[in-house]
Structures are given as structure tokens and as C-alpha cells.
């Protein structure tokens, strides 16, 4: 049990889950809109088996009194009736050019993981999938981050003490997708039916559109990062200035006391220094961490994309030369 608390070595997805997620996005998500849903499954040994899922209904303004929890419970009960695993093991979310590292994700994953230790978040990237390769990733918060979130200590000091960088925020859990034989049969059949043109998507040479979008997003994040750093910079400068003042004040005080002592007068009464020098409000650093994580994510994406595309380009060049 103890081992499972901390690590889930792998997740096994049933194809049905993948298909359902894709279907959900196709039906409801467009563009940068995000779809979310609940994952169901069970823990077997050190693996988490996700066997089914259902989507969260799309929120609209007019049904504000819609009770999400109620809906989930209802849903799970119904699924149980038809003999499907009804244990809540996490949630899934779609993403837009890999921009999923956000405060919202952190908070909800934290609450999930807090309540159900083995829960994971599945991130589905429809754009990459549309380019020909399924992109599905499972993430969990690292124990360190869990601790920090529990303490809600996002000050620079706190983060420093926890010794956490953006790399240590999330851990990716390997995914294995397992099909039932029936589904395998279906897949074969589908592949037979699909035309050649459908598969050529993988060989699409145009790259600038995707790159431009990614770059745009990346730039936005970098701007945010810059701002945060400037903020932090001001904070540290203020802090150090105040430290200096405090130091000076203490010294003066000491001197005066020494003088007084030499004159035989009682020393000055102790004053609350912290009241005199209120330390400046430290900026929360969690957002910066998240931004850094996000930037890293973008970079990974772009790198992946470019390396693939470079390969394709060389291939195309070779082909052209051959012709």
C-alpha cells in the first residue's frame, strides 16, 4: 500500500477511453476551448487501469444551479448498474498547443490527488493528434509539490526551502494502451477501409502555421515571465533596502545605549522592530513556476515538432533530388 501511495508506475488505458475522449473533443471542443471529463478505473498492483470515462457537460451561463458533483455521482451510479468500473481515478482535459500548465490545472489536480491518491490527469492534444500521431499524456503532481500545495506556502522562501523547480512539479506517467480483441478487429477493419490520402497527413510539410501559433503563445508566456521577474526584482531590492535600514537602526540604537550606559542612564526600552520595518509583501512565486513549466512545455513541443519536420524536409529534399 505504501508504495502505491507515492508512485503509480504506469497507466493502462482501454481504447474505449481514448476514443471517448477524442469523440468528446470532436463534438464539443473547438479551437482553444477545453473539454474535461472524469476517468474511471481501478488500481491493480502498481498500475492504474483506466477502463472508462465520461465527460463533464459543457457549462453554460443559464444553468448556474447545475450541480456537478450530483451529476458525477449520478453518472457513476448508473455506470455501476451496467457493471462498469465506477471508481474515480482522475480526470482528463484537452489542450491547445500544449498550453495546459496552469493554476487551474494545478488546483484541481491537487484536490483530486488529495482526495484520491492515485488519480492522474490525462492531457489530450487534439492538434497533434490531427497531425497524425495520437498525443495523450498522463501527469501527476510530485509529492514535493503536493506538500507545498498543502501548506499553501508560495513565498520565495517557501519554494526555496522545498527546493522545487519547474521540472519537479509534474511527473509524467507512462501510458500503455490496451485493446480488447474486438477492438483490434475493428481497428484492422478501419485501416483497411481508410484511403491512402488520410494517412498522408503525417507527411504534411507545412510547418509555419503551427510554429507561428506556438511561438505566439510562447512569447506571451515569456512576457509574463519577464513581468514576474521584474516584480520579484523590485521586491528583493525593497527587501534588501529595508534590511539595510533595519541594520542601521539597530546599530544606532546600540550606540545610543552604550552612551547611555556610560552616562549611567537606563538603556532605551526595547521596541518591536518588526513593527517599525514591515517587510514588503513577497510576490507569490507559484505562478512564475507554472509559467516556467509552461514555457518548458512549449519548448518541448516546438522541439519535437521541428525535429520531426526537419526529418520530413530532408526526406522531401532527397525525394526531389531523386526525381
Amino acid at each position, binding site marked *: 500500500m505504501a508504495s502505491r501511495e507515492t508512485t503509480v508506475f504506469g497507466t493502462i488505458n482501454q481504447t474505449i477511453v481514448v476514443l471517448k475522449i477524442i469523440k468528446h473533443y470532436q463534438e464539443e471542443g473547438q479551437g482553444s476551448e477545453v473539454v474535461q471529463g472524469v476517468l474511471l478505473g481501478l488500481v491493480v498492483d502498481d498500475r492504474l487501469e483506466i477502463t472508462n470515462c465520461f465527460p463533464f457537460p459543457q457549462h453554460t451561463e443559464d444553468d448556474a444551479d447545475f450541480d456537478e458533483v450530483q451529476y458525477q455521482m449520478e453518472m457513476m451510479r448508473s455506470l455501476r448498474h451496467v457493471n462498469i468500473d465506477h471508481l474515480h481515478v482522475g480526470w482528463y482535459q484537452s489542450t491547445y498547443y500544449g498550453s495546459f500548465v496552469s493554476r487551474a490545472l494545478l488546483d484541481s489536480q491537487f484536490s483530486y490527488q488529495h482526495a484520491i491518491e492515485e488519480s492522474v490527469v490525462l492531457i489530450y492534444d487534439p492538434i497533434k493528434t490531427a497531425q497524425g500521431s495520437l498525443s495523450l499524456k498522463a501527469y501527476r503532481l510530485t509529492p514535493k509539490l503536493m506538500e507545498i500545495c498543502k501548506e499553501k506556502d508560495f513565498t520565495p522562501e517557501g519554494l526555496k526551502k522545498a527546493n522545487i523547480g519547474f521540472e519537479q512539479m509534474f511527473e509524467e506517467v507512462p501510458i500503455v494502451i490496451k485493446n480488447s480483441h474486438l477492438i483490434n478487429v475493428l481497428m484492422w477493419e478501419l485501416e483497411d477501409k481508410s484511403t491512402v490520402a488520410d494517412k498522408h497527413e503525417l507527411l504534411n510539410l507545412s510547418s509555419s502555421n503551427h510554429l507561428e501559433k506556438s*511561438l505566439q503563445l510562447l512569447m506571451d508566456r515569456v512576457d509574463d515571465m519577464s513581468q514576474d521577474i521584474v516584480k520579484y526584482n523590485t521586491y528583493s531590492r525593497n527587501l534588501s533596502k529595508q534590511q539595510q535600514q533595519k541594520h542601521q537602526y539597530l546599530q544606532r540604537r546600540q550606540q545610543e545605549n552604550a552612551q547611555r550606559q556610560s552616562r549611567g542612564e537606563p538603556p532605551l526600552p526595547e521596541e518591536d522592530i518588526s513593527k517599525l520595518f514591515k517587510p514588503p509583501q513577497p510576490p507569490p512565486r507559484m505562478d512564475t513556476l507554472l509559467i516556467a513549466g509552461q514555457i518548458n512545455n512549449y519548448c518541448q513541443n516546438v*522541439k519535437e515538432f521541428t525535429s520531426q519536420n526537419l526529418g520530413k524536409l530532408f526526406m522531401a529534399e532527397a525525394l526531389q533530388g531523386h526525381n
Partner: protein
Amino acid sequence: MSRFFARSDSESEESSSDDEITDKAPGATFKQSLLLSDDEEDTKRVVRSAKDKRFEELTNLIKTIRNAMKIRDMSKCLEEFEQLCRAFLKSKNIVDKEGIPPFYIRLLADLEDYLNQLWEDKEGKKKMNKNNAKALSTLRQKIRKYNRDFESEIAAYKENPQESADEEEEEKEPEDSGSSSDSEGEVSSKSFLKKKPEAPSEATDRSQTAKESEDKSSSSDEDDDDDDDDGDWSPSDSDSRSETSDKEEENALKRKRLVTFLKVKRSQDTEKPGVRKEERKKKPKQKEQIEEEAEEEGGWEKVNRGVPLVKEKPKMFAKGTEINTAVVVKKLNEILQARGKKGTDRAAQIELFHALAAIAAENNLGQGILVKIKFNIIASLYDYNPNLAAFMKPDMWKKCLDCIDELLDILFEHNNIFIGENIAEDSENLAVSDQPFRVRGCILTLVERMDEEFTKIMQNTDPHSQEYVDNLKDEGRVCGIVDRLLTYMENKGSTEEICRVYLRRIMHTYYKFDYKAHRRSLGLQGETKSEQDQEENKEENKEENKEENKEESEGEDSAVIMDRLCKFIYAKDRTDRIRTCAILCHIYHHALHSRWYQARDLMLMSHLQDNIQHADPPVQILYNRTMVQLGICAFRQGMIKDAHNALLDIQSSGRAKELLGQGLLMRNMQERNAEQEKIEKRRQVPFHMHINLELLECVYLVSAMLLEIPYMAAHEFDARRRMISKQFHHQLRVGERQPLLGPPESMREHVVAASKAMKMGDWRTCHSFIINEKMNSKVWDLFPEIQRVREMLVRKIQEESLRTYLFTYSSVYDSISMATLSEMFELEMPTVHSIISKMIINEELMASLDQPTQTVMMHRTEPTSLQNMALKLAEKLGNLVENNERVSDLKQGIYGGYFNRDQKGGYQQKQSYQRGMLNFTEVVSCFMSMR
């Protein structure tokens, strides 16, 4: 009368039945009293409040003095006495009117007696403490000195048998009314009544008396029969009064009493406004009566304002008086005395002057006196409006013009009249004699004032009414007068005066377009072509240019006139302002007539831009007008850049209207109070001198478009692109925000639509948006040389469209033939060639010209949008790294030991950042290599 007496005589009675008074039907008593003497009350009322106040102050002080006397507190006495003296001084004018209040005299007398008595009393003096003794001696000296001024009064008082027994006197002392002695009973009653308004019912009276009695009982040396006294003091009072004095005083007294009484009643009766109003009406009549009475009584006179003049009017001079210069001058001065006074009837005064002028003329007194009178007539015409903001009425204005005309006639006819403002009044020579006339007065000032009045009239007339046109017709006369004055001054005036009159002339010339000269120059160029236009122009402008035609009939171009006048001013003027104005007007005139280079050179030479902000607002407005005109001129000449620069300042503020003095912007009162608004209103330029704001804006926007669109196309991906014209961008954005784009309606929409077309390099559409029926009627027709301007504009549009096209689409072409371009933009080959060459030289276009095939070969060096983006990202990352370094510097710099102590964390953080950086750089290099 009886009522009155009954009341005031039997105070005691009333005090017992106080309710009666208040309850008595006030109207009835009131009417009665009205019948009695409704005349005085109002006048008295005027005096009353002030008098009451002062007298109350005095009586209060007296009261305290008497109290102090009683307890022998000399220092207090002295203090109070000094205050009393001051208070008395303050009430000086009331005292002058009313006579010295008897209670005051009484106090003085008593005080002196008392002091003397104390002085004599050596023993008492010894007993006194130091302060008191000192005060006593000071006070004694003071009162001696002081009383010298009132000797006669005090004597009279002392002489008068004082039946007021000591006790009675003392009993009255605490209460100020008591201080009034018998002989002046009026005061006693008055002061008593004075209290009445505060407390109309006798109850208060009662309480007062009660208080008095308390007072007295507290003052030790008082006998105890005050109650009795209290009971009968009013009768005794009335007794004393009845005993007193002669009849006149009695009368006056009655009046006063009555008045005060009525006043009391009044305050009770305020709910009867009807009655009051009635009285008000009677007021004037009453006033006169009062005045008469006042004369009878006091013998001091009130000046009956305004009236004498009117009365005098029919008989200006007594019959049989020999009318000569001296008499007329005297009369003139007499009339002048009334000038500026409050009650003077200004219209009547003008009439008087006229009459005087007529008399002078009739009696052949010579031109000198006539000129003087004329001066005065004009001056009083100007004076007619007390308010600076108000403008002259049309008839006044006509009269004024006539007068000035006549005056100028006289001056021209008679060469021997010298006028000048520095001729002293007494050195004037008005009589007919061998010597030339010398008259004080300045015709130039009068004409300047007239000009200002004209401006004011134009400012205050609705510019879209027939009235305005009618008023504008007077401009001819004004110009005529200025012209005549100019001729006169050229002969007689000093240099400064000539400068001033020249400036006036310039001010009337500079904003008018000289159609005749324009036509002449056109005629020289091509007679046949302009023939038709001429006819049209003539018809159109006949009305407006009447006065100009008149000027032109002299055969001089306005340009020549301007040149001559301005050059004279440049050379001779010593005041900066006139020269500045002249330069600005000159530039304006040049600009108006499309002499761009002259105008520009003059502007640059004058260095006005540097210090115009120190000038006064009207000059600044003139400067703004000139700048705008200069900009429009540059536009007409095809100097788009110059036009844009000239107009930029005016247009970018968004307050063009205000800056040109052509109207006030709606602003809230915080920024501008009523006073400021008035001042600003006075600065407005009359409508006929306005510069069309729409034209101005259109010129600005079109020139901005011609500059901005190619610039935008050239720097599409430049991160540091700067806007040339903010306003133009604003218009573009407004256009983009429109949810539905219909065909353009307003001038701005046209320009925006044209800009969009130009952005695509579509010059035909752009042209059709800029020059069409609507825009012609709105803007372009306002130019004098429409055809030329349009041609220029089309050409500019073609050129700039070509540039934009090349900027935007060069990446699509490998090469493009110049012939195609020339065909596309309907430009000649050499022009296309020169434009492209210029672009290549300026490194705006990465291309080369291939001479044999007449094509432009493009060299792809422009980065693609992705590359641009990557560059931008690299720049941002640079910033980020810089910021990051700053953070780590701070940490290491200040805490020397920090890095070592917490090395792991700090290092790690840094490393992670660096790793991130490595990632970025990799990405960027990837992009670069991909191309």
C-alpha cells in the same frame, strides 16, 4: 396718530396687556399708520439697520461703562471708554446724518462729572489700588480732551434742567433706553422700540425689566423702590418728552417713533406681502418727499441724479447767453462730468452732445469745437454699453460709423486741425483764430475701437443669418474708414501711429483671397481656359468681394499692398506685437495665394515658432491660423510632408476649433469658469474669417494617408514601428471597429475607405474615394485652384499606391516588369523608374533594376513572418535574461555569503533557467536553419 400715542405713551398699560398688541388685527392698524405717514418709513428703513446696529453697540458699551462706574472699576471704565470712542468713530456717518446721539453726550457729561468727583475725593483715591488709580488719571485726561469736541452739546445738556432724578436715572441706566434723557425722548422710545422686533411681545419687556431689577438689586448701592419706578418710567418718559423742545423736533420725533413702531408692526405682519408691495410702489414718491423733508430738516442735500440733465435738455443755454467757444466748452465739460456716473442716462447724454454739436455748428464756432464734440460723441457711443462683452446695437453702430466718417471729413477738409492724445486739455485751441486748431483726442484709438466693436458685432451675430450678411456689408465702410485714416495718418501721424493703422489695414486684408489678382495671373497663363471659370467666380463672389473690388479698383493687388504695409512695419515698428502680427498676416496672405516658398521662408526667418508660446492668446490664435493656412498651402503645392508637419500640432490636439478661435469646445465647468468662458468668447474670430475645419481635417488626413500607408506597408513586421500620425490611426481604428461597413458618408469615412484601398495598392478605388462628388462639394471645391489640386492629388495617390504595392507584394514576385507597373498605376515609365530607384537607394526595397528588360528583380532578404516572430522572441528572451541576471546580481551583490550558504538552491534555480534558455536558443536556431 392717536393710536401711536396711545401705544407709546402707555407702555405700562401695554405691558400689562401684552397679548393685545400682537393679536390686534395688524392690517387695520397698519392701514391707519399708512395713512398717517407712510412716507417716512421706507427711507428710515434704509438707515435703520445700520443706525440700529451702531447705536446698539454704543448703548451696550455705555451700559458697561455705567456699570463699571458704579463699582468704581476704573481700568474697566477706561477700557470700555476707548472702545466706545472707536465705536463712535465707526458710526461717524450715521452720526453725521442723525446728529450726535443724546445718550452719548449724556454719558460723556456724566462720566466727566463722575471722574471729577472721584478725583476730588482724595480719600477714595487713596483707597484705590494702583491700577485703578492709574486708569483714573488716564481716563480723566482722555475724557477732557475728548469732550472738548462736544463742548457745546454737553453744555446744552447740562443747561437743560434735568428733571430726571438720580434714582430715575440710575434706574434707567442698566437698560440702555434709560440713557436717553428727557430732552431727547425720541431716542428713549426708539431704543425701546428697537428691541421690539426682537421680541415683539411685551413679555420679554417684562423679563427685561425683571432682569434690570435683578441687576439693580445686585448692585449694592441701589435703593429698593425700583419696582415702582419700573412701573412708571414710561409715563415719566412720555412726560419728559412732552415737556421737551420745540415743534420741529417734536415732529421729527414723531416720525421716528412712528417709523420704528411701524417697523415693529411690519415684522409682525410679514405674512401680508400684498400690503407691502403696495407700499413698495409708493416708494419713489416717498423718497422725494423725504428728500425735501431732509432738506428742510437737516439742510443737507442729496444729489438728484440724472434728473437735472433731462430737465436741462430743452434749454441748453439760458436764453440770451452769447454762445461762444468758452461757453460751449464749459457746457461740454459739464456734460462730461456726468459721464461714467451711475445714474447718468447714457442715451440722453449722446443726445445732449448732438444738440451741442448742432448749436456749435449753428453758431459757427469753428471746426475745432466741432471736432472736440465729435470726439466726445464717439466716445460716449462706445460708452453706451457698460458691459465689455455686450456689442453695439445696429443703430448705435450706424451712428458711430457716420460720426467717424464726418469727423474724418472735417479732418480732411481742414488741414489746420491738429489732434493728438498728448495735447493737454488746457493747451487746446478751439476758438477760431489764426493759429491752427489744437484738439485733444486720438482718432486712431477711436477707429481701433470701432474696429473692435465691429468684430464684436460680428462675433455676436448668428453667422448663418441674413443679419450677418447685412452686418458684413459694413465691413466695406470699416475698411473705407481705415483706408481714409491711413491716408490721413500717412500725412500727419507719427511712425508708431502709422504702424498701428497699417496693422489695421493688414488685418482687414490678409484673410481675403484676391480673386482679381488670381484671375489676372490665370489670364496670363491661359486666357481661354479660365474664361468660364472667371465668369463663375465672378458671380459667386460678387457679393463677398464688393469691398475688395473697391480696393482693387485702385488698381493695386492686395499682395502689393500687403507687401508695402508689412515692409513698412518691419522697418519702422518698435513694438514687437505689431511686427509679429504683421509677419503672421503676411505669411497667411502668401499662403492663401499659394506663394508657398515666400510664406515658408518668411515663417522660417521670423523664428516665430520658438517664442510664440509667450505671446498673448490673440496672437497665438493668429499664429495657429497662419500655420494652418501654411499647411493647406503646402498641400496645394503637393508638399505632402510639409503639409502634414504644419498641421500636425493643430490636429493632434483635437482642439483645432479652439486653437483657431473658431468656437468653444464643450467642457465642464471645472476646467473653465464663466469668467474664462467670457474671455475666450471675446477671442473668437468672426465667422467670415474662419478656416473651414473640415477642409483642414481632410487635408491633414489625406496627407497623413499618403505618408502613412506606404510607411505601414514597409514596416509591417517592424517591432518598433512608430506611427506618423496618431489621429489618422485613430480614424482607421474607428473604421475597423464598425460592425457593418456601408458606403462612406462623411469625409472621414471616405478617407478611411481610401486608405484601405491604398493599402491593397488599389489606386483606382482610392482615387474614387478621395475625389468624388461628395468630397468635391465638401472639401475640394473650397480651394481656389481646384483642378490643379485634384491633378496633384491623383498623381500622389498613384505614386504612393505604387510604393505601397511594391512593399506589400514584393515577396510574391521574383521580378516585375516596369511596363506592367506603369500600366497598372497609369504612370509614365520614367516616373516608375524614378520611384523604384528611390526605393532601392533608400534600402526600402530589396531589388535591382534590370536595364535591358526593364524589370525589377527582387532579392529575397525580407524575413518571413515566422522568422520575424522568432526574432521578436529572441529579443524578448534577451530582456528576460537581462532581468534574470539583475535578480541574481542583487542576491550575490548584497549578501556576500548568500551564494555560498544557499548555493545549492540558488545554483539550481539559475541552472534551470539557463537550461530553459538553452532550449529557446535551440528553437530559434532551428527556425533559422529551416529556411
